[in-house]
């Protein structure tokens, strides 16, 4: 198992460590529900150094990504701007989901999943062969996600002055570079905040300063309930190579308006022409209980399956994502340990900026 540069800091903070995608990472430091609320109401930090940072450099970087990604890097015009996209195979199946940052015409930075690192990077390198670009993985970088309504202010209080100056006026979903820090106003929680990349050797010092500023350590457990509430997919659970983004709630990330030829497009067009069979929706359990992945869902339009599910600490109810027939709406039942429990079908996200989204709680009442 690989350890991040913050391993000792996690142990010192009382972390319960688990194996995740080949890494030893904290699942929680005590109560994962407290960590969840910490991010919704104040500021928490996650060690996400297991995420893979890949730079694409060269004169054809944009052309390469235009072919590689289902979302259109033409949308990235101002330096620092970020884009969420899927990387598809020829069948339209999702190889990985990622964030790509446009830094310069000859430099794009991508952050891809740890769980798919080998497969994803191999695919990248395979597709890169036809283009004049260089693909470089940055193993030496650590990454800290500082998230929550107070996250930016608390981060500003401990970041170097130059970095704070560079962050002045930074827009959502953008990044800046300052010396050896790469700071993006992105995240996986539905809250404001930063994802900060830095050389591994500097991670412990920044961690310590953030702790001192009142940013509390949060583990993978809270990260999962936060992203689920925020309506964000988890690769390998909510989508994989067997399904397309169109049936994974990610049609908004597929840019097909012009005739750009990206990998997987013909398959997506065939799927659209034939008519989509399934869609990914949100579920809110009406009564008591907890939803989990891989539970059977019965709708008026046919059967489906939950892909992610948990207890929402913000809503105090069980929520899930489920892949169901396109005609499904309103009510459904979920099979939980032999019982059919009533749930409502909703449109994610469930929670944004600390509050239940419109229609989410009403839908369950």
């Amino acid at each position, binding site marked *: 198992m690989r350890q991040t540069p913050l391993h000792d800091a996690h142990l010192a903070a009382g972390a319960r460590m688990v194996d995740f995608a080949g890494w030893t990472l904290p*699942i*929680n430091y005590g*109560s*994962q*529900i407290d960590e969840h609320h910490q991010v919704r109401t104040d500021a928490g930090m996650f060690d996400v150094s297991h995420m893979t940072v890949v730079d694409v450099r060269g004169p054809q970087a944009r052309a390469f990504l235009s072919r590689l990604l289902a979302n259109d890097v033409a949308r990235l015009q101002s330096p620092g701007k970020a884009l969420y996209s899927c990387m598809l195979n020829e069948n339209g199946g999702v190889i990985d989901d990622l964030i790509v940052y446009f830094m310069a015409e000859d430099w794009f930075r991508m952050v891809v999943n740890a769980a798919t690192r080998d497969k994803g990077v191999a695919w990248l390198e395979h597709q890169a062969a036809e283009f004049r670009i260089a693909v470089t993985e940055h193993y030496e970088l650590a990454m800290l996600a500082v998230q929550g309504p107070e996250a930016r202010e608390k981060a500003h209080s401990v970041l170097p002055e130059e970095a704070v100056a560079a962050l002045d006026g930074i827009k959502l979903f953008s990044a800046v570079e300052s010396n050896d820090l790469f700071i993006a106003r992105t995240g996986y929680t539905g809250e404001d905040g930063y994802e900060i990349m830095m050389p591994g050797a500097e991670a412990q010092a920044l961690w310590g300063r953030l702790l001192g500023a009142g940013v509390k350590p949060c583990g993978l*457990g809270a990260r999962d*309930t936060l992203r689920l509430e925020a309506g964000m997919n988890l690769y390998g659970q909510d989508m994989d190579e067997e399904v397309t983004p169109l049936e994974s709630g990610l049609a908004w990330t597929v840019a097909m308006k012009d005739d750009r030829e990206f990998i997987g497009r013909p398959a997506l067009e065939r799927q659209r022409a034939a008519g989509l069979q399934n869609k990914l929706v949100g579920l809110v359990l009406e009564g*008591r*209980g*907890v939803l*989990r992945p891989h539970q059977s869902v019965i709708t008026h339009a046919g059967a489906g399956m939950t892909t992610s599910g*948990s*207890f929402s*600490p913000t809503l105090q109810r*069980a929520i899930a994502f489920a892949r169901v027939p396109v005609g499904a709406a309103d009510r459904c039942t979920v099979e939980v*340990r032999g019982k059919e429990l009533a749930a409502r079908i909703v449109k994610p996200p469930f929670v944004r900026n600390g509050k239940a989204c419109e229609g989410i709680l009403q839908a369950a009442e």
Partner: protein
Amino acid sequence: MSEIPSDLLYRESHEWVRYDDDGTATIGISDHAQAQLGDMVFVELPEPGMSYEQGDACAVVESVKAASDVYAPLTGEVIESNSALEDSPELVNTDPYGDGWLFRMQLADPAQLEGLLDPSSYADQAEG
């Protein structure tokens, strides 16, 4: 290091048993078990009047992380379940041997108590 009270008996599946001398026993899950599972959000308890054989799954404790069966540590009939857990499942975390108890049983065969783990045997297993 989790707490393992010396006046209780345990089962390998992490239930604890407090024998009450009148042929009844109170049952819960150990501090070790609650710590492994993490924050409890839902507890499903057996109805009074239900009978179980030793080893039968009879309750479910669900944390944010996972659902886990609780097994009847002894054969008998459920005489009471802890209704406070319906609204406050977190009592299993905060007070696993006190307010976080799960249910009480009328034992069919108190001799089965001898087959349970004493605190030191359970400690070896749980912390080992």
